């Protein structure tokens, strides 16, 4: 179970809508399964060089290489590492934990893609060594424009399991 204030759910949906068709991304912090803060992070994908795209793997990399830089951000995101570090520092100063990551799927359902799972597993391999708690992965889908959907997942051993969201008013 993950508890999120309705204002933060609304904030994530607004973020997704503002950036559409590009994917948005951000970080959520809080304590013990209850989100209290949301940090919007820049999706820098459209500004990444061809060489930097090799950060992605096989099929996704081929897809990205076929598109223009602007179009790439429609199907993927890369968080700005500096903003991510700043957010982590801010949450640490407030005594909060990094509880989750969110991003949007502009044209597809609110479930993790193969790329999402691969990169979540990559993060998982570093996480414990850096003392980060296990994150929730949230996806905002704008597939049906007037009916945005937000879902949360745990991703373990290459499997995504949906976690119910309890909305706090």
């Amino acid at each position: 179970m993950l508890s999120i204030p309705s204002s933060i759910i609304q904030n994530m949906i607004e973020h997704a809508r503002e950036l559409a068709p590009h994917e948005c991304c951000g970080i959520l912090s809080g304590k013990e399964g209850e989100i209290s803060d949301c940090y919007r992070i820049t999706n820098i994908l459209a500004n990444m060089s061809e060489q930097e795209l090799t950060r992605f793997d096989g099929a996704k990399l081929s897809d990205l290489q076929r598109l223009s830089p602007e179009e790439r951000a429609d199907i993927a995101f890369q968080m700005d590492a500096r903003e991510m570090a700043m957010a982590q520092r801010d949450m640490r100063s407030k005594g909060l934990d990094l509880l989750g990551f969110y991003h949007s799927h502009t044209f597809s359902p609110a479930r993790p893609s193969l790329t999402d799972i691969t990169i979540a597993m990559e993060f998982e391999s570093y996480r414990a060594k850096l003392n980060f708690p296990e994150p929730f992965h949230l996806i905002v889908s704008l597939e049906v424009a007037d009916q945005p959907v937000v879902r949360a997942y745990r991703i373990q051993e290459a499997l995504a399991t949906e976690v119910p969201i309890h909305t706090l008013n």
Partner: protein
Amino acid sequence: MIKVRIPTPLRPMTGGKSEVEMAGSTVSEIIENLGSAHPGIKERLYDEQGEVRRFINIYVNEEDIRFLTGKDTPLKDGDEVSIIPAIAGGS
């Protein structure tokens, strides 16, 4: 020696190793030595201006070097350097 954690996308350059030991007294020296031992890796970490690429975080132990003294952050025996790409994904 300093233990350096290598992220998944760069492991083909270290023969598949997730951790390597490097000599160096600053982060910058470690990256230089890493680049000499494993050609191509430095270019994956630094941009054309020689700055850490915008999607990469480098930690010394549990602190991001941006909040220490950047690439000049001093290292002592037993410190651990982790190279971590920021979260990404795609639909």
